């Protein structure tokens, strides 16, 4: 406790590290180079940078110096590399495992200049680009002002690249502030519900008082017996009935208040959970493909279902109840103090002790419940994994293995749950015991006062009732840590998704463009992460109505290229233009609604064949669906199904073959009548005959429509206006089928290999 307080004071008074300016950094780095190693007067320093690892990955205090015509490195005060800028052919940033390197090419060989941790990969990549640009232009680098790290201006800590904000400076208050934004639309309902809770407390407080009047006025009252004997029985009976009636009235009031309160809570709860789920679902849909694929499907489902339910339960159930209990606690405490402050003190004294114990317990339970959450999440993921791959499991006969895998996962969860609940069961009653120590004093107090007749039976009963009321809220508050911990854990997980910056977002001035179909790649480079670019310096123009075939070996970046056109990812460098407009300036909805894509993985949603085709164009007619299916070659097999277009497919539906699914997917893409058609191995899983018939249909369709097609089976691309051969992430060859064959390059090799294959088969 003391350590924590001292820590807080220290953090308040300590001098916060200030971000270092470029000039300061420069001066600091230059001071590391001994004067005798370079002539400060003769050589003008353009840029100076630091690095941390030498060419053999050993730690070093390195300085990279750019003077007017040379690049020099100094390590631990000693001169190392000295290169003439004109001697270098090319600079590159090479990424290894956990380390990146700045290298230069001379006489066909790459030589290392310096190395750094992966945190600096992006920075060194930019340095390389700058140096290569300078080489191309024939100029020497001017002052390079980008800082090597992004520093938080508030705390001076390095900002992690993926977050974009300093998470160190974001606090819980901000998170609850965000939560308030979600709760805000329900504030009046919540206030009303809280008022109902308070009304219920008020009604509850009436019962001990009525009880006291009943006992003291009519049961234990000797004067009353005398009054009845004196013939005033009617008046006494009337008063007695009045008391009974007030008790009955209080019960009715309690019932009405409870009903209204519960109905209110039901409404708030359902509204809130729907709002929360919509929000998180919408956010997940907006997230980039890379963000989504980083998480398992089971985990995402859990976020949408159980985490939202936990937060809803807290806001609509526990939060008003908390208000209720705190109000009850305050009122009862006030009543007890008004009766006898000494006794009230005795009863209240154990409360701070229990509160401290609860706080310690809270800190501890947070960890163990988080652990349980992780185990639960893992078990769900295992289950989802097994069910998704059930075909593989069954075909390999590994049911027993998978049974054991799931058993292991749920056993781990069960063990943690038993451990946590046992702990809770042990500590919770103990906290209750500490709290209720005061009740022993209460017994002594009421008994002694009743014996010396300073307290009536009714007063004693009322007093005991009030004291029991005070233990109720305190006992409930003792259980609060568990509720808050669970909610906080879920809340953190929810905000982890909600706060994530979308990797692809609409520009503020994004426009809706009616696409004509010209696609231009201007020096496009793209990498999924810092480990290197998948596509490098792609320059390509696809004219409206052209069909471009993309060919190349597996993993060369063909699908990546079309993902960039659909803007599922944003380019790392350069730009892609459609009709002369950068696609980042076109709204995503406008762009994608005019692109029809048939991808390698065909996915059909649960529903009918009709629904799956009509998915691409809400509100389309049956005729349009039939025509699209006819065009894709799906119609012929659909009419043979007993329920034809109303046949259920997808999960729990009719099992379609790979080729049939593919044809439904093609029909879906065609229905949209897209301006740009993307075919990623669209006919790969079809037999040659069906492929031929679809190809003929497509041929008619792709007329006047820009088409980008990827196919390993090169005959599929025979109608392409031009073929683009990708190799090592760059455009290696461009031309028609005949031109490329004559060239006898990569394409020629691929065609020959396929011819040999077809001879064999």
């Amino acid at each position: 406790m003391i350590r924590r307080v001292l820590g807080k004071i220290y953090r308040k008074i300590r001098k916060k590290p200030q971000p270092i300016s470029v000039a300061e950094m420069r001066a600091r780095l230059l001071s590391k180079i001994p004067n005798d190693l370079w002539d400060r007067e003769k050589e003008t320093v353009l840029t100076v940078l630091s690095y941390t690892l030498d060419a053999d990955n050993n730690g070093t205090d390195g300085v990279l110096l750019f003077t007017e015509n040379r690049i020099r490195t100094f390590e631990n005060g000693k001169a190392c590399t000295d290169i003439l800028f004109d001697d270098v052919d090319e600079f590159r940033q090479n990424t290894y495992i956990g380390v990146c390197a700045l290298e230069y090419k001379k006489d066909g060989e790459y030589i290392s200049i310096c190395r750094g941790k992966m945190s600096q990969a992006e920075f060194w990549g930019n340095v390389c680009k700058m140096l290569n640009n300078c080489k191309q232009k024939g100029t020497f680098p001017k002052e390079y002002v980008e800082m090597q790290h992004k520093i938080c201006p508030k705390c001076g800590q390095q900002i992690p690249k993926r977050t974009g904000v300093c998470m160190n400076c974001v606090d819980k208050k901000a998170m609850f502030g965000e939560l308030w934004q979600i709760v805000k639309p329900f504030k009046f309902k919540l206030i009303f519900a809280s008022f109902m809770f308070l009304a219920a407390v008020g009604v509850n407080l009436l019962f001990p008082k009525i009880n006291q009047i009943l006992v003291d006025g009519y049961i234990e009252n000797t004067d009353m017996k005398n009054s009845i004997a004196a013939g005033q029985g009617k008046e006494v009976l009337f008063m007695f009935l009045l008391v009974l009636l007030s008790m009955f009235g209080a019960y009715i009031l309690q019932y009405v208040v409870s009903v209204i309160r519960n109905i209110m809570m039901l409404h708030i709860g359902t509204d809130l959970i729907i709002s929360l789920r919509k929000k998180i679902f919408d956010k997940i849909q907006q997230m980039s493909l890379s963000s989504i694929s980083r998480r398992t499907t089971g985990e995402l489902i859990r976020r949408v279902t159980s985490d939202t339910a936990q937060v809803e339960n807290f806001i609509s159930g526990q939060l008003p109840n908390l208000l209720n209990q705190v109000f009850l606690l305050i009122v009862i405490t006030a009543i007890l103090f008004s009766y006898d402050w000494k006794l009230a003190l005795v009863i209240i004294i154990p409360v701070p002790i229990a509160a401290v114990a609860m706080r310690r317990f809270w800190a501890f339970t947070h960890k163990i419940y988080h652990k349980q959450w992780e185990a639960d999440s893992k078990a769900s993921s295992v289950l989802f994994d097994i069910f998704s791959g059930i075909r593989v499991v069954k075909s390999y006969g590994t049911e027993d293995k998978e049974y054991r895998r799931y058993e292991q996962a749920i056993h781990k969860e069960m063990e943690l749950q038993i451990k946590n609940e046992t702990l809770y069961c042990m500590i919770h009653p103990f906290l209750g015991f500490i709290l209720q120590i005061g009740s022993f004093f209460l017994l002594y107090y009421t008994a002694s006062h009743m014996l010396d007749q300073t307290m009536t039976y009714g007063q004693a009963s009322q007093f005991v009732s009030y004291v029991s009321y005070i233990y109720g809220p305190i006992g409930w508050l003792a259980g609060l840590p568990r509720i808050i911990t669970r909610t906080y854990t879920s809340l953190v997980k929810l905000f982890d998704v909600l706060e994530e910056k979308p990797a692809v977002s609409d520009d503020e001035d994004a426009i809706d463009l009616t696409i004509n179909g010209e696609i231009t790649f201007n020096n496009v480079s793209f990498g999924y992460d810092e480990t290197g670019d998948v596509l490098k310096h792609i320059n390509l123009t696809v004219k409206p109505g052209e069909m471009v075939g993309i060919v190349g070996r597996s993993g060369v970046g063909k699908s990546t290229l079309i993902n960039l056109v659909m803007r599922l990812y944003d380019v790392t460098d350069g730009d892609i233009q459609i009709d002369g407009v950068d696609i980042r300036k076109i709204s995503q909805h406008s762009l994608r609604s005019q692109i029809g894509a048939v991808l390698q993985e065909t996915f059909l949603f649960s529903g009918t064949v009709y629904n799956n085709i009509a998915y691409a164009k809400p509100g389309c007619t049956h005729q349009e669906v039939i025509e699209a299916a006819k065009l894709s070659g799906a119609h012929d097999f659909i009419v043979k199904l007993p329920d034809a277009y109303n046949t259920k497919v997808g999960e729990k539906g009719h099992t379609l073959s790979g080729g049939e699914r593919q044809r439904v997917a093609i029909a879906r893409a065609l229905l949209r009548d897209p301006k740009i058609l993307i075919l990623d191995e669209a006919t790969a899983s079809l037999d040659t005959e069906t492929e031929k018939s679809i190809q003929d249909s497509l041929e008619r369709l792709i007329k006047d429509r820009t088409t980008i097609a990827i196919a390993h089976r090169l005959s599929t691309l025979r109608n392409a206006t031009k073929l683009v051969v990708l190799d090592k992430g760059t455009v290696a060859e461009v031309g028609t089928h005949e031109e490329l064959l004559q060239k006898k390059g990569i394409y020629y090799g691929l065609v020959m290999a396929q011819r040999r294959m077809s001879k064999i088969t």
Partner: protein
Amino acid sequence: MENKKVNLKDVVKVTYLTPQNAHFEEKNSFLSFKGTVLKPDENYVYTETEVEYKRVFLQRNFPHDQLEKYISVLDEDNVEIGIISDISLFDEETANMLKRELHRKYYILKITQVYSVKEKYGFSYWKAKTESGDVSFTLHDTSRSITKVGEDRLFISDVDANRYEIESFTALDRKSRKCMELYI
């Protein structure tokens, strides 16, 4: 006709690099290679061919548990030239050369002590001691960023793709273990 069973290894053509068919040299902190490997012709018939590469890269096939065995030798375009089944097959000088190249390729700091782990919004902020000094790094989806290998060996990958290793979780001091127990 005799129905002889064909094994997988009869069909697969892998060039295993040994002192007999491979010669490595080190220059400018890079590795070059000269040797005889199996190469397919256009009809996929494999023949032994003399090759020479100015620069080659090493890649562990099992980076978690086979640190000096099954090392692929790749060219500049990441095309495999052959596999070193065991570095110890080579003479001491070559073995050390290969180990140095692996050291250049894999920069994985060994964590010896964890000072603190603070979690906020799904990111966790670590301060730790490594064999090369103190480090601080950030993990996203902490549990998923930590890979457990075997009983208690851990590999950590931070948001920037830096790598860290804890050789034995149980061998860490109590405070370090307590900092991490939530994620293990």
